[in-house]
């Protein structure tokens, strides 16, 4: 058994939430650069230029990329040969608390659906836990904005609606969302499982590397087709029109009931802020 000190978890989370709110991933920035070169509308180009200039200002470390520094989402993988004393969820939340305070990040969590009193420290994080083999703890950590999350949805299709049904649902969802979720988007899609599993799959999909390739040929083709079809919608950067509505489409799937075809669409804005850390 490998002994893990939960204070190290707190430190890692704190460092990660500050880092992701000031620094965009290089592969994402290079996709935005390419998109800018590809745009023909002046207005759309100008918006993509703003996004690139914003990245340069934020990385100096004084002003976060976006005022919506998000809800912290953690995909937590705990190896079965790891041992720790205490409450790992509290250790993660302590990292969020310290990171959002010391990093001058906005506290966007409210306690109750109706009295809406701010928790003042951006906790609790939303944490999904998996037990895996090994002697490590791996955390995929995101700061997820509210604007793009609000445009996400779970739909229970019927099995015979098939690929065409999924495509129509995704295209309608992205078109109707328009400029609200801050396109160009990364579209995470979860197909299968059940109601809640599809949503987790979609969330996991937006954490994938932008340049990875799906091992399943049918799903890979669906990702490629949807990428082209979403960009053909013409929603464009911030909804003003143009060739760039999405930067990537990522689909994860899972076995499901014979009667069901659950589809979850988790929309990620262009400011896709996430990282992976391990201990």
């Amino acid at each position, binding site marked *: 058994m490998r002994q893990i000190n939960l204070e190290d978890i707190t430190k890692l989370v704190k460092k990660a939430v500050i880092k992701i709110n000031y620094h965009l991933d290089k592969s994402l920035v290079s996709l935005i650069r390419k998109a800018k070169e590809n745009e023909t*509308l002046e*207005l*759309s180009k*100008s*918006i993509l230029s*703003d*996004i690139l*200039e*914003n990245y340069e*200002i*934020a990385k100096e470390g*004084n*002003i*976060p*990329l*976006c*005022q*919506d*520094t998000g809800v912290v989402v953690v995909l937590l993988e705990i190896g079965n040969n790891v041992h720790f004393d205490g409450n790992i969820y509290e250790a993660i939340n302590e990292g969020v608390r310290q990171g959002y305070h010391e990093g*001058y*990040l*906005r*506290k*966007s969590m409210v306690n109750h659906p109706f009295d*809406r009193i*701010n928790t*003042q420290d951006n906790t609790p994080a939303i944490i999904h836990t998996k037990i895996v083999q090994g002697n490590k703890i791996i955390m995929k950590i995101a700061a997820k904005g509210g*604007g793009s999350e*609000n445009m996400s949805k779970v739909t229970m299709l019927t099995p015979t609606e098939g690929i065409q049904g999924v495509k129509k649902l995704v295209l309608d969802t992205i078109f109707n969302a*328009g*400029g*609200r*979720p*801050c396109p160009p988007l990364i579209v995470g899609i979860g197909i299968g499982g059940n109601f809640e599993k599809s949503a987790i799959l979609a969330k996991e999909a937006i954490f994938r590397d932008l340049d990875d390739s799906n091992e399943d040929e049918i799903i890979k083709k669906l990702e490629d087709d949807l990428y082209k079809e979403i960009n*053909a*919608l*013409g*929603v*464009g950067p*911030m*909804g*003003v*029109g*143009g*060739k760039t509505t999405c930067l990537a489409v990522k689909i994860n799937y899972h076995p499901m009931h014979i009667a069901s075809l659950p589809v979850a669409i988790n929309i990620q*804005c*262009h*400011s896709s802020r996430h990282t992976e850390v391990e201990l």
Partner: protein
Amino acid sequence: MIRLNTPIKDQDIKNLKVGEKVLISGTIYTARDQAHSRLLNESNPAFEIKGSIIYYVGPTPKRDNFPIGSSGPTSSYRMDKLAVPLMEQGLKIMIGKGNRSEEFRQEMIKNNAVYLITTGGAGALISSKILKSKLIMYEDLGAEAIYQLEVKDFPCFVAYDIYGNDIFKDNLL
């Protein structure tokens, strides 16, 4: 490109056409969902609504020596219904991001107001156009409180004008 100085007059609104770049200088006010709800029941607001500009933003906390934190726009549609009584009191410009309801657009035209957008997710860039910020109402709302901002060349685009044009529809491929 059009340069606008606050307060906004009726003639300024007439000059704004969809897709045009606008640089705003002067005083603007922040308000989001909760501040709007409260403003509607406010008999004596701390700023003159007539001729004013409201920016839909909830900034990050400011560091010492900086006028404000990251200050990009939030989605405007959540304020569609709440904005109507303010436009009736003379609110002239709303700045946010994303499309809004048809009902809002009709009310906006009726009240001779316009809706501008600025780049979502560009909060660091936009904050560099804000020279000063001062909390004026609803401190308990934190990031959602109402701030008075002094801005210089604050960059926007006209999204809906009073002539019925809509940036989100006009440019579709």
